[in-house]
């Protein structure tokens, strides 16, 4: 009997033991409350201190996350929470974008936004991170559902935080779609409870394939909604269009990543062993949804005139790529997914923040507004081009390496299973890369090939080139030295094991 088994027979000791590995979450909760309180007591002229408080809080959380050494694969809090080998990586992956966006907003000027002087913005960020962390570690459907709802509700609030008419509309749309998919998931969970008698993650008994598919598809619907996979993608363009870009840089990335991790966890628990053999139908259904996401995302993006809507559709396609990185032979969170995520983080954050910087109010997010900017401000043009190259997966950027690895993995799994479906899939997504290039090239086209019309916009621009250069430089550096990234991922995972 191990120590942990021993103490779990004493409830209080067990909780005390588990609390030792819950410091980040406790800190986040304290941060959440403190930010609301200090907003009450700070006078209007001192509101800018809220930013410093939030930053301080997140840095502490970052330090705590790096320094903690939790036991791997051991259930805490009576089986509610578990640390997995990849947890550390993803926790870091959640904090770093938040800190990046906060730093960006500081440089852009806190008074630029209506919401950065409000305490609730920062406390929402704390709550968002708390929800994401719990989602990552959940080991039980109750915990999972609660954390997903927590992330969702915070997301609705963050979308609406500017309190303009457009934001509210987006928020309501988001809420309705989110509520529907949550209820679908809840329905699936109730089936699961009926079949197994427990909420803990465990494999489904060998039952009728139809029942099994209903359970699996209904349960993963929640994750697929967060990932914006077809047919749960319809909310994306409207919500993106109506949301403040820095917030979007977070909302387009973090819930998606959390969705991926729970998707992996659920699937590898529910349909264990070799998912290919035991339930080919489920797996092919998922691959089909992924393919349709890529296709619909790419083709819809072709027709857009508005940068944010274009990026929204392209993010649907990217979510498909992300899922392909894990849906091959066994559902695993591997290095390839992590490389893809890191590539996506840099490119995605950079493009949304650039869009934010270029957004001068009136029609600032239409392609038309970028006419001739690249000729006027060559550095800006080059930076945007690099980001778009990475998003479309062309060398010399890490986006190419990531796509290359996804293709290679898909091919390897074809080799292992000799399933021709996978090969078609490979050809299909390779050709989709070409389609995606059409719309990604549109922005450099407007930047460089059109003549400048609107003189005013360029003069109003206030872009922090240092910030963006530092953010975009890794896209190229990591292509030439992928060893840095791979070593880092290995290091994070191995230290904890």
């Amino acid at each position, binding site marked *: 009997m191990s120590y942990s088994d021993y103490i779990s027979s004493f409830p209080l000791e067990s909780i005390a033991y588990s609390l030792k590995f819950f410091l980040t979450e406790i800190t986040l909760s304290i941060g959440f409350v403190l930010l609301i309180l200090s907003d009450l007591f700070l006078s209007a002229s001192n509101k800018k201190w809220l930013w410093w408080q939030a930053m301080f809080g997140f840095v502490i959380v970052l330090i705590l996350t790096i320094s903690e050494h939790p036991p791997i694969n051991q259930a805490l809090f009576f089986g509610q929470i578990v640390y997995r080998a990849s947890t550390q990586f993803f926790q870091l992956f959640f904090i770093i974008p938040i800190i990046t966006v906060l730093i960006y907003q500081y440089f852009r000027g806190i008074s630029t936004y209506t919401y950065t002087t409000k305490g609730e913005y920062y406390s929402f960020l704390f709550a968002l991170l708390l929800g994401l962390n719990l989602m990552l570690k959940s080991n039980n459907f109750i915990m999972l559902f609660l954390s997903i709802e927590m992330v969702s509700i915070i997301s609705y609030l963050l979308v609406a935080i500017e309190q303009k008419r457009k934001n509210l509309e987006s928020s309501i749309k988001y809420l309705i779609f989110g509520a529907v998919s949550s209820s679908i998931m809840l329905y699936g969970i109730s089936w699961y409870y009926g079949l197994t008698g427990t909420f803990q993650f465990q494999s489904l008994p060998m039952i009728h394939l139809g029942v099994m598919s209903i359970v699996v598809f209904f349960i993963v619907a929640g994750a697929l909604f967060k990932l914006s996979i077809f047919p749960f993608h319809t909310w994306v363009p409207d919500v993106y269009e109506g949301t403040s870009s820095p917030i979007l840089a977070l909302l387009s990335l973090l819930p998606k990543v959390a969705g991926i991790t729970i998707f992996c966890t659920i699937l590898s628990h529910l349909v264990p062993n070799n998912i290919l053999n035991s339930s080919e139908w489920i797996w092919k259904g998922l691959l089909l949804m992924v393919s349709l996401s890529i296709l619909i995302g790419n083709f819809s993006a072709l027709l857009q005139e508005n940068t944010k809507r274009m990026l929204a559709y392209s993010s649907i396609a990217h979510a498909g790529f992300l899922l392909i990185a894990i849906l091959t032979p066994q559902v695993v969170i*591997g*290095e390839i997914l992590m490389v893809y995520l890191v590539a996506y983080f840099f490119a995605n954050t950079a493009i949304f923040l650039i869009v934010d910087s270029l957004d001068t109010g009136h029609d600032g997010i239409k392609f038309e507004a970028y006419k001739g900017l690249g*000729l006027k401000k*060559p550095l800006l043009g080059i930076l945007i081009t690099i980001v778009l*190259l990475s998003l479309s997966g*062309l*060398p*010399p950027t890490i986006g*190419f390496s990531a796509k*290359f*690895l996804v*293709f*290679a993995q898909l*091919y*390897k799994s074809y*080799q292992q299973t000799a399933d*021709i479906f996978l*090969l078609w899939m*490979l*050809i299909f997504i*390779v*050709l989709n*890369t*070409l389609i995606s*290039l*059409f719309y990604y*090239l549109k922005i450099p*086209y407007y930047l*460089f*090939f059109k003549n400048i019309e609107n003189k005013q916009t360029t003069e109003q621009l206030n872009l922090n080139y240092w910030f963006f250069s530092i953010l975009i430089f890794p896209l190229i550096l990591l292509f030439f030295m*992928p*060893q840095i990234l*791979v070593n880092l991922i290995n290091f994070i995972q191995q230290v904890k094991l």
Partner: protein
Amino acid sequence: MDIKLGSPIFVVKFLYYEYSIMTSFLLSILIFLPCIIGGILLFVSKEKHHILKSGLIVSGILQTILSGFIYFNFHSKPISNFAFWGIERFQFIEKQDWINLHLGNLGHISIDYFLGVDGLNVSLVFLASFIVLIGAISSWSIEKNVKAYVLLYLLLSSSILGCFLALDFFLFYLFFEFMLLPMYFLIGLWGGARSAYASIKFFLYTLLGSLFILVVIIVLGASVIEPLETGRNLGLVGTDIQIIDKVQLMLNQNLIDSKYLVHSFSLIDMSNINNIIPESLLTIIDSKLLLGYPARSLAFIALMIGFMIKLPVVPFHTWLPDAHVEAPTPVSVVLAGILLKIGGYGILRTAYAIFPDGAIQFAWWIGILGIISIIYAAFNALAMSDIKKMVAYSSVSHMGFVLLGIASITSEGINGSIFQMLSHGIIAALLFLICGVLYERTHDRTIDYYKGLANKMPVYTAVVTVAFFASLGLPGFSGFIGELFVLLGAFSSASGNQLLPQWIAVVATLGILIGATYYLWTLQKMFFGKFSISAQLNLNPLLNDLTRREKIMLFPLVLITLILGLFPSVIFDYTSTDISDFSNFVLHTGSQIVKK
């Protein structure tokens, strides 16, 4: 003996030491020199056009000197082993580990920074540097956004040379793809009225081709191992050759667990059939089917399509006339002079070396595509009213000869193909410069608008006449030698290895005739007779003769086509041994695999 600092012996030894270090990185220096110069030019104010353009020319001159040094220090070694295209054939080799990924049970991926020259690429490297230099001189007339132009042009020349020198397929692909970007902007930003359309068309066509190549690279990477690293992983001891032999033996008996395999992207490992994993898709033991077709054939076809778009070969050629018509003169020169050659070189280096069986099985089809290109493009050229478009179609026609020579897999044919690439590189540069000269004076290139230009521009007319005759294959000029050898190859294939029927060679010979027709016709219409220009040319242009800068660009090119035509041994002496060996290797290995 102790050597004092500063003593003559020390100086000699030091210089020799420096020299040996430099030669061991010579190819990297050749590739990245333009990048370094670009880095320096970054700090030059964008108003100082002359400094920027001089930087471009200096970079071109240095590259030409370096690649000349490489060319004249290259000695092909007679090696009579046709089983594989081994590393001992290469010189100035540079090999560094670049990317190593461990994929758990799936083994390792190893990607190298791997450069080298052999008979296939050494002359093309020289050509590339030289054409880049000519393009740089011709860029002197660019006035718009000079700094951006210079930087993009330098990036382009880096990636072109990288493409010719890379021996790792991944590295090759990287340079191949990266070339698109500077080209896209060079055509789009400094081009004519419809340049945005032309540049996007160019980009997407070539990208489509390179995606085919990418898929094959992935499949190859999963199917080919690097024997030496795998042996070290397994803990084998012995000399390198012993380890390699042992690993290849073990591999073919399925004795190696997949987690010890080191997957390689090296083109040299790929061209050795002993390195192919027996149960992989590309195995040579039993041909595996994919969608009902043999997988190796499909991979071969995919590679061929990728490079035939670049070459271009007739059904895939439509991007070329658009790109040429819209591109500024120096970019046209580089495009026709070098970029197309990467297609031909890529076919030989990758498709033929890795899938020699496909080369034999599809020889007939490739030969047919070759003559379709020759004939169809020649007829198109005949119908063009824009002189630059005519030259563009004549390029497609001449590239048809390259493909035909390659298809024959004979020593004469492939030697002829490479010679044709060199010769066309020079002649196409010449022809596009000629179009540029006219365009700079009148801003119109319609053939029918001009008559009797010889009266106003005698030197220009002389150069045009020489260029046209060189291009149509008059004996004494380089075009003749290239086409002659290709046709010899096609005929000897019909009687020797019997891959191509006789009539293909006969039809190809007719292609030369059509070529003569459109050149002579244009010459007669535009240059001879009484001088007059059409009223459609709204400005009354000063049709002055060639300027000094134009002469500096054009005369060396004329001289080189003459030298190549009269003394083809300057090329053949250095490269023909290797190329003949290569054709023997393809034929030998290919027929071995086909028999199995």
